[in-house]
């Protein structure tokens, strides 16, 4: 029996458009709760003022339908496509790019994509960064993640030696956050990818940012513990909200891990500013 389910590419375009506009205007409740929790714990008066403004801004953005941040990001997408899905009416990638184009044009979002060498703006925020996974089933999941440049610039990957171990990983992560200081708009969320290959570690670090803020790794108790330890070390750095000093430099550390080569210990740190935006829908 033919189990394929048809999905019109136009629906994909519409969904991508809707998700990017919504993500840029409507900050997730998990982020807001985490910021409110941070406000209750922050000891620095200036740090508290910064957190209050961040929370106020989210409310204004939602009410006025204005982007939370002027950097409405590179359009990063994670697509999970069921192997029984048959896309009709056009090419999947073209449908996604069209959704991004329409979101950034019609949603009054900033077009922040340019040629790396000439720096000429592509004018429509494409091309998008599209990660596609094939999964069982007949559904299509779209995760839209506008990713700002300031925090992305503070991210890094390193091929550690196996001898470096957990301590080496922790030192690398804390050092990157320390070096970043006020640059990536703290309080940040730190996505860490351990293992895989160079590029897989980077993708894992980015995927780690999609977890609800502060939710521990559910699959691995050891990693959940490492997340706690890292958050604790990072929040001793004193960077604070806005980098103006304080107790809350990061809201959360999320780690994802995969096996790696016997010669390697890849680690990637993807830093996310406090405007942690992502929306998803299953078609």
């Amino acid at each position, binding site marked *: 029996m033919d189990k394929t389910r048809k999905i019109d590419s136009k629906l994909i375009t519409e969904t991508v458009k809707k998700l990017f506009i919504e993500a840029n205007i409507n900050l997730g409740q998990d982020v807001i709760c985490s910021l409110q929790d941070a406000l209750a714990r922050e000891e620095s008066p200036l740090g508290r003022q910064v957190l209050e403004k961040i929370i106020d*801004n989210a409310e204004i953005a939602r009410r006025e339908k204005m982007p939370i941040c002027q950097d409405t990001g590179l359009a990063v997408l994670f697509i999970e496509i069921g192997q029984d899905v048959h896309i009709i009416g056009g090419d999947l990638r073209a449908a996604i790019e069209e959704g991004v184009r329409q979101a950034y044009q019609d949603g009054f979002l*900033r077009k922040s994509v340019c040629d790396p060498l000439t720096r000429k703006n592509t004018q429509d925020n494409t091309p998008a960064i599209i990660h596609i996974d094939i999964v069982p089933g007949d559904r299509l999941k779209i995760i839209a993640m506008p990713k700002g440049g300031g925090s992305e610039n503070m991210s890094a990957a390193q091929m550690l030696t196996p001898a470096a171990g957990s301590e080496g990983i922790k030192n690398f992560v804390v050092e990157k956050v320390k070096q970043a200081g006020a640059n990536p708009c703290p309080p940040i969320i730190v996505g860490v990818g351990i293992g895989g290959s160079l590029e897989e570690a980077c993708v894992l670090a980015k995927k780690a940012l999609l977890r609800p803020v502060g939710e521990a790794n559910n699959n691995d108790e050891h990693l959940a513990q490492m997340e706690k330890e890292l958050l604790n070390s990072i929040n001793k750095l004193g960077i604070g909200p806005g980098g103006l*000093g304080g107790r809350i430099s990061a809201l959360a550390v999320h780690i994802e891990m995969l096996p790696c080569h016997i010669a390697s210990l890849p680690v990637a740190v993807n830093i996310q500013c406090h*405007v942690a935006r992502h929306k998803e829908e299953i078609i």
Partner: protein
Amino acid sequence: MNKKEKVMRRLEIPLKTDIISSLQAGDMVLISGEVYTARDVAHRRLYEALLKGEKLPIDLKAAVIFYAAPAPTPPGKIIGSIGPTTSYRMDFFTPKLIENGLKGMIGKGGRSAEIVAALKKYGAVYFGAIGGIAALTACCVKKVELVAYEDLGPEAIRKLTVIDFPAVVINDAHGNDLYLSAQNKWRIQSI
């Protein structure tokens, strides 16, 4: 009221020499007047024009530059969301601009030792604004005028008239750095 709570100080652009000299890292300020937006590519163009001795599209004398590129203006608004971008990327070009009259910069994140030295030598100041609160910051902008490099789209130079734009002095004209001192104050040394 907590004695330590800082009072906001109102500043008018152009910034006068004695005012700049009186500013201290950590001072909370509300800035009013005209500022120019300029970031990465606009800085390269200004820098190259200065090297070639060409006339600049903006007057740098006593000017304040805001490292920013706004989101497009929605109908019925003065400007789209706008806030500071990270400043260190402009460090390479900035000393030349300061030499040519630039008196203030608004951005976010730390600056290089060269910038701190140039601020001291020429009497200029670097203000920090909070990143990621761009819908709120847009409320301080009362007028927008496109002045140069229109081809750069969001990165074009715009003249903004701002009223009571909140910022904090990060690097004053005396070599002080608020990010460093604040982080040192709040850092917990591991045993």
